[in-house]
């Protein structure tokens, strides 16, 4: 099994306002998706949800305030999963709430093993 990181990307400033019920089902959707991966014993690290604070360092000691902002999407979080191949990992990412209803994207990347 190899490890893959799933990187979540969404709009920096979502304009949609959600009702409490919608947020509730959003939470459940995430829980179910994560639970489904964990149930296959393929969740390596439940990762992190990132806040909207950030700084970006560029060469030459240049610091810009805010998350990396070349594009409208920012990284909102990531998890690490186990899969046989990147195709399997991408298949698993298809069920992510961000892609299904959230209008975001998931970048799937292989992790270079630390020990050889």
């Amino acid at each position, binding site marked *: 099994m190899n490890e893959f990181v799933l990187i979540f990307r969404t709009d920096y400033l*979502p304009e949609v*306002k*959600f*009702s*409490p*019920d919608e*947020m*509730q089902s*959003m*939470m*459940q*959707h*995430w*829980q179910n*998706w*994560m639970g489904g991966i964990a149930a296959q014993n393929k969740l390596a690290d*439940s*990762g*992190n*949800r990132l*806040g909207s*604070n950030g700084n970006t360092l560029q060469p030459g000691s240049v610091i810009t*305030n805010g998350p990396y902002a070349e594009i409208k999407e920012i990284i*909102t*979080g990531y*998890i690490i999963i186990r899969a046989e191949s990147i195709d399997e990992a991408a298949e698993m990412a298809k069920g992510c*709430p961000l892609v299904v209803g959230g209008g975001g994207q998931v970048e799937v990347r292989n992790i270079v093993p630390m020990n050889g």
Partner: protein
Amino acid sequence: MQEKELIPHLYRAEFRKITAVLGKVFGIAHIEVAEDIVSDTFLLAAETWGLKGLPNNPTAWLYTVAKNKAKDMLKHDSIFNQKVVNEIKYSSSELHEIEIDLSGKNIQDSQLQMMFAICHPGIPAEAQIGLSLRILCGFGIEEIAVAFLSNKETINKRLFRAREKLKELNVKIEFPPEAEINKRIQNVLTTLYLLFNEGYYSATRDKVLRHDLCLEAMRLTYMLIENESTNKPFVNALLSLMCFHASRFDARTNPKGELVLYDEQDTRLWDRQLITRGEYYLNKAATGNEISKYHLEAAIAYWHTIKNNDEEKWEKILQLYNKLLIIEYSPIAALNRTYAVSKVYGKEKAIEEAEKLNLNNNHLYHTLLGDLYFTVDPHKALEHLNQSLKLSRSAADKKIITGKIRKLDLEKK
């Protein structure tokens, strides 16, 4: 707590608390920023908790995240920071050190102060109710739209204009000075009473929502009672009145959601507990010398909770309506007084009184005359009921009037 209701539950319980505290820190001009920060916090909760599982103490999590968001905003958004400094008259160093205090005491105080700020005579009553629902009760725009039988755009516009107006009037989020409390609180009570009526009489079919509106109005009134400087006899009278009315909430609609008139209600459905609470607050209201309209309305409502229909009951009610009308005229009180007259002195006398009222454009007036003439003069009764049908606007009203007309036809045959 069922986990499947966790976020709506927390939203209803905590949105208003955090918004009041942040709103107080930012000032009325930036109340929407406070609302947005709290909304964002809930959205972040939905995603983070979905990803990482629930925190040990979800409420504490929400407070911490909202507090950090607010602090970050003041720290990183220098334009916003400067505005807040100017408007609230903080010195800018003060603002950096400001503690966003989400203790129970400060939450309570901020909400009460917010209540005084929002229930401001400078903005239209409807907008006060809308803003109260949003900021003091944590209702979503959609729910408010349903409650007002309106749409999201209209409500958003209405709230936007109201916020702008509060900003223009430079309304402060603070307790009015002791000497002014009695005056300022009248407007707060009017809004809370309207909010209650919005739930009690609303034409919207969503019974759960209507019930919620009533409960929210009662909760806010109760907050005034819990606070020493606003615990006035007339506030207790208002809460008593709300309890008595609310006790009939289940009895006044049938399973199909249609209105059941007072005389036809199943009295077993009256909520004894709320009646007892109403009596408790009515007793508490009976201190001091002043008799407000809320005292009189509460007393009238009290007599309506008495099940028997004897003359004594209606005599008391009639006298109370007399006093109420002397303090403050309203068409509905005038009509209700006439109904009481019919119960005490008979229909002929009531018709005589009714015809002096000059309420020809009020459909309830014609409904009342239709009822009074029902056995006395079926022909006239029909005339009035038809007139009432023509003037009435809501489907629920039309249904009731049509029912009466049908009944009249049957009697004639």
